């Protein structure tokens, strides 16, 4: 029962485990679940383990039980591809009508949005069929409008009230704010970056080590022997380089600022530099990039165990990255293209990560992102991305 539902959650990116699915069935057997609204609550409590996925759950639930529109969580590629295809086909409506199995008059009656939706629905069905998997209740038949198929009456079985039917509740999308796509707050960043530290003993020996004291005392035939240790401090060196130039970073100023503020308050040994678009001969310690330049070459003498974090959208004209005089600043004319500088940085600091505030589904559309991606491990500037970056930065090799 509800196997399709389970797999639809999985396909939409909610990490659901088979164990929890079995547990849901145990709950169903217990007699406590007497209607769809009970099922909504029970399944969510048992299957979904983080409020970040509640929003997706709501959408999948509404889709499964009432055929509400399910956005494609896999991103924009399908969308873009579909649009391109559709544009092609729109030049030849006859072929389109044939391909979709409806006649031309019906086709004309549809608005472009409806048409696109219809087409996407068909397309989705097809990919599903290829996976040999779930049946998409709701995209029924050949009806020209997307979701008019399955519509169960009497949602509120048993009449237990939640003031609304479960589907209505799900459609409310109360948890939109908690979804992964929501903006990053400082507290969330703090949680994600907490693991970014290396504790080393420093300072005076003033921490009593009880275990050592006991064993030393027993070895000493019961005469008390007290052992002290140094306290642990965070001694991780972090170099943060921020792209603060150009309009392309403007939409992300707020999130980068949050990251910066958090880092400054949290890390003892933090160096912050600024650059514009890409890194050439210099980075700057001051945000206007004028007074305190830092030569990239000189970073070679720095501790190679420092963690290098670069924040930028990595989006620029390809020549800015590849050409020998790519910098838009006239004084940077050393004859080395930026890409060499980036390679040098990646070689100097083996623990490095590039945080990109643009959504990862758009990365493939910008060429320079692809190039930089091959040099630095790149992560999205989101909660999940930060998590990945921290894992990368703290890994041993």
């Amino acid at each position, binding site marked *: 029962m509800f196997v399709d539902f389970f797999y639809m959650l999985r396909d939409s990116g909610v*990490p659901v*485990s088979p*164990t*929890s699915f079995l*547990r849901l069935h*145990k*709950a169903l*057997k*217990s*007699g*406590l*679940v007497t209607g769809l609204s*009970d099922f909504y*609550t*029970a399944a969510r*409590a*048992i299957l*979904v*383990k*983080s*409020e*970040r996925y*509640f929003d997706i759950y709501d959408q999948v639930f509404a889709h499964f039980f009432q055929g509400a529109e399910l956005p494609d969580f896999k991103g924009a590629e399908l969308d873009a591809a579909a649009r391109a295809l559709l544009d092609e086909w729109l030049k030849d409506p006859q072929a389109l009508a044939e391909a979709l199995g409806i006649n031309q008059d019906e086709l004309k009656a549809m608005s472009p949005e409806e048409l696109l939706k219809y087409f996407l629905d068909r397309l989705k069905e097809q990919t599903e069929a290829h996976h040999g998997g779930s049946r998409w209740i709701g995209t029924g038949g050949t009806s020209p409008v997307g979701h008019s198929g399955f519509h169960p009456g009497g949602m509120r079985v048993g009449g*237990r*009230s*939640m003031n609304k039917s479960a589907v209505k509740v799900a459609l409310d999308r*109360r*948890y939109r704010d*908690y979804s992964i796509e929501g903006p990053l*707050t400082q*507290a*969330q960043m703090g*949680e*994600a970056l*907490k693991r970014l530290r290396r504790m080393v003993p420093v300072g005076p020996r003033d921490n009593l080590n009880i275990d050592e004291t006991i064993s030393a005392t027993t070895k000493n035939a019961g005469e008390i022997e007290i052992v002290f240790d140094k306290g642990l401090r965070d001694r991780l060196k972090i170099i943060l380089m921020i792209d603060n130039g150009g309009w392309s970073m403007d939409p992300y100023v707020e999130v980068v600022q949050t990251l910066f503020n958090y880092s400054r308050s949290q890390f003892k040994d933090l160096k912050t530099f600024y650059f514009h678009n890409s890194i050439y001969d210099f980075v700057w310690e001051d945000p206007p990039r004028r007074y305190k330049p830092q030569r990239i070459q000189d970073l070679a003498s720095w501790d190679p165990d420092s963690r290098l974090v670069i924040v930028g959208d990595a989006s620029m004209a390809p020549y800015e990255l590849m050409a020998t005089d790519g910098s838009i600043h006239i004084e940077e004319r050393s004859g080395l293209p930026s890409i060499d500088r980036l390679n040098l940085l990646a070689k100097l600091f083996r623990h490095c990560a590039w945080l990109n505030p643009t959504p990862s589904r758009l990365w493939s559309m910008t060429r320079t992102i692809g190039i930089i991606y091959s040099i630095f491990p790149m992560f999205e500037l989101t*909660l999940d991305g930060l998590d990945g970056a921290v894992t990368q930065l703290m890994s041993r090799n």
Partner: protein
Amino acid sequence: MPDQGTNPAFSGSSKYVLDEELAKIVNISIALEMPLLLKGEPGTGKTMLAHSIAETLGMPLIVLNVKSSLKLVEALYQYDTLTRLNDSRFGDSSRDVSNIQDYIRMGKIGRAFVADTKTVLLIDEIDKADTDFQDDMLDVLDQMEFDIIEIDKTISARLRPVIIITSNAKKDLSDPFLGRCNFHHIAFPEPDMMRQIVRVHFSDLDNELLEICVKTFYGLRELQGIEKKPATRELINWIRALRQDHDFRPKDMVQGKIPFLGILFKKSPDYQQAVQQIRRRRS
């Protein structure tokens, strides 16, 4: 299938206003004998829930407040070596020094296991401990038994306690941990719910004041740039203060004069922000 007689259903208590969804989740967790993990911003009543379950079901409540320094074994049992040393030196107690059993004291989880009646075990703010602690603890709770190494004895739970775990963390707990819990996120109460909650605390509050307070309160939560938004606790205290103040007229508040802002905004930058924004709004 458990019938309603042996498994009493939970439907809220006198001090706690429960929404139906949460009641259902609590009941399912009790039926499945699974720990229930509650998340939500401070002031949504995560801790209160455990108290009210205990009260409603008539079970004793055992609270384990997690601290970052807490070790799992401390939550299970303690071997009181100091008393034993004392007894062996001075020998003036009824305890048998050669019997270590006499010096084992049960910790909070241990007490829930050996209790004669079913208990409610609240593990509060689990996110304060490190991941290993969390996973190890869930192992114990899953198997419902632990070993006392000193006397080589296994303690098994007589009755599986109702386990409620709360967490404030924005970040998720580890996967194995989550796999063994049911999960619920308590959203901040809607105004309707909030009115009920306030009613529970002040049964004689007049409607006009209640209405204006709740409205102002939600208005204040909307202010921009506030780090710690006022929560239920602040609202209750604020209303209490307003009722003490004999000069206060609800009409003043309609005009945007809000007394005792300090009760609602406890951080000084927040307070200043709030004062500024309210002034701007009035002018």
